[in-house]
């Protein structure tokens, strides 16, 4: 009798203990089921932005400020790079794509196949800064021709010393740092310098993280690299900025930033874009509200995050473009260095 009692007692303790966590798990499952309600409704109020790491801080600033005036708005911003952002955009996964270069023909075709019409709006200007190590005192100014000699795909494993670029330069090893090949900065730079997007030498140190490039150039005495202007501005004391010769043969720097606004730092200043899905704009009021806010206010925060405002007349024109709902790309065949007010 006593044995039986003991057994049943011990059995009951064993019986109950595993049940507790299980009950907890079950209730959690139920709970998560409840939050899963009304998915379509949630999607309606969401605005998703993705794309270039370069334009990301602008969209982020707008989303942050928009959240202050519209606390119930559900805005998400990601930075998968221009290429990654546009491919998500053309798959219909997001409403707005940030881009640091114009959309390409291939991407337009993909979008078309999926039935995605888009509105292209330039929202800010940026410069590409050519940078060298602080110890470099001989590279003050480079022409596009010299840059092409450095970065051309034909130079792979051939142009390895500074004196091969220009005989006045010392015989020092040329170490190169640049953005990875799926970034908009890479596309724009190769197009401006080598004449064809994505045509670049391959024996350089690439990174998606431009801070890595800054660190690389700052720590390597004979290095040269190119980054978005904001990365130079935040690391002025660690780097030398190289001037680039404009088509008239004048050496120009991207600072002061008026040189970018007035298109003096050509062809290495570029517009940054947002691509807006026409369908999202027409069917989701939250997207239209957000885009209106974007165009109305983004100029206030552009310079805070390291970019350059558009000229005033350009803002008026892009607002008109949004109202008219004009789809397609005007910029895809524009040569690097053309002032954007002429295109709009």
């Amino acid at each position, binding site marked *: 009798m006593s044995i039986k009692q003991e057994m049943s007692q011990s059995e009951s303790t064993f019986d109950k203990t595993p049940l507790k966590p299980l009950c907890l798990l079950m209730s959690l499952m139920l709970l998560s089921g409840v939050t899963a309600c009304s998915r379509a409704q949630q999607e309606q109020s969401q605005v998703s932005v993705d794309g270039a790491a370069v334009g990301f801080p602008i969209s982020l600033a707008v989303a942050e400020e928009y959240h202050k005036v519209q606390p119930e708005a559900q805005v*998400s911003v990601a930075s998968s790079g221009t290429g990654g952002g546009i491919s998500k955009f053309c798959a219909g996964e997001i409403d707005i794509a940030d881009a640091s270069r114009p959309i390409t023909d291939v991407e337009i075709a993909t979008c078309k196949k999926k039935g995605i019409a888009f509105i292209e709006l330039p929202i800010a200007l940026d410069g590409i800064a050519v940078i060298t190590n602080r110890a470099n005192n001989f590279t003050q100014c480079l022409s596009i021709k010299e840059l092409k000699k450095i970065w051309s795909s034909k130079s792979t494993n051939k142009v390895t010393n500074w004196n091969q670029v220009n005989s006045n330069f010392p015989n020092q090893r040329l170490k190169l740092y640049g953005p990875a090949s799926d970034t908009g900065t890479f596309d724009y730079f190769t197009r401006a310098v080598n004449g064809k997007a994505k045509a670049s030498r391959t024996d350089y140190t690439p990174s998606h993280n431009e801070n890595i490039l800054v660190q690389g150039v700052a720590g390597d005495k004979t290095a040269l690299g190119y980054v978005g202007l904001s990365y130079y501005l935040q690391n002025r004391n660690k780097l030398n900025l190289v001037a680039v010769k404009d088509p008239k043969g004048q050496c120009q720097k991207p600072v002061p930033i008026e040189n970018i606004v007035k298109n003096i730092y050509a062809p290495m200043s570029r517009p940054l874009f947002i691509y807006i899905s026409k369908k999202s704009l027409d069917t989701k009021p939250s997207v239209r509200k957000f885009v209106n806010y974007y165009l109305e206010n983004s100029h206030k925060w552009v310079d805070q995050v390291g970019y350059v405002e558009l000229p005033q007349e350009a803002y008026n024109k892009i607002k008109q473009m949004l109202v008219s709902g004009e789809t397609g790309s005007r910029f895809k065949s524009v040569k690097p260095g053309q002032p954007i007010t002429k295109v709009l």
Partner: protein
Amino acid sequence: MTNLISPNDFQKPAEEFTPDVEKREKIGKIFELLFLIALYVGLVVLALLLIVVLKDGFFRLTTPGFLTETPSRFPDQGGIRPAILGSFFLGLLVIVITVPIGVGAALYLEEYAPKTWWGNLIEINISNLAGVPSIVYGLLGLGVFNYFLGFGSTLISGALTLSLLSLPIIIVTAREAVRAVPNSLREASYGLGTTKWQTIWNHVLPYAIPGILTGVILSVARALGDAASLIVIGAVSFLTFNPGLFQRFMALPILIYNYITRPEPGFANAAAAAIIVLLLLILVLNGAAIYIRQRFSSFK
């Protein structure tokens, strides 16, 4: 006496045996020292990580609102609330999804499945899956959850993908734990006339729970720290709202990754602060698991 010393053909004859206690003790000391160094290598690396991260991130961590506000474009303002909640929900969902499935699979393999060559084959394959890089699971999740099941880049897709990532480790460790349950326990239970299921539920499982939880701790910590698969799934780096199950989401590893790519130097400190939060979050989840483990250990 003969029972205690097992017969050994290789034992040397007594006259050749030289005690040389000093030499043997010395060798023993040397190994003790080597193992101590091995322990310190791990501890020093951990300490360095903690010191560097705390030095960079502690100040930012203590600024008001870092844990409770939504992110900002300024490195020294705003907070990381959506990322903390995102990572917390991901961890919770991973546990909820993987523990029943993983333990179930382990129990079947260990208690029910006939011991055949294909059982071994399955075991080897599951162990192999535990070593697959997380980005591969990310691609699988992108294809299955994002596109095929149509969840899109949502929290549930991320949680399911991380569950796939964690499942092999949980199955392997749960299997080991179930295997370690002494057979005498099962036989005693059968001897009282219980069914197989009663034996498993009342005796095998409670006995195995500490071992199972160790596996859960390891795999959930891995899942929470994983960025590669979530990047593929489409976790975002900025949200103005708390993530829901079918909404876009943020997670701490993604936030950290994004912060270190930003030009402003202050973001490096914010990233360090976010790393501290991630470590604490893993500590909390693990602490809960360890607490449950201790409770079950005391039943033995």
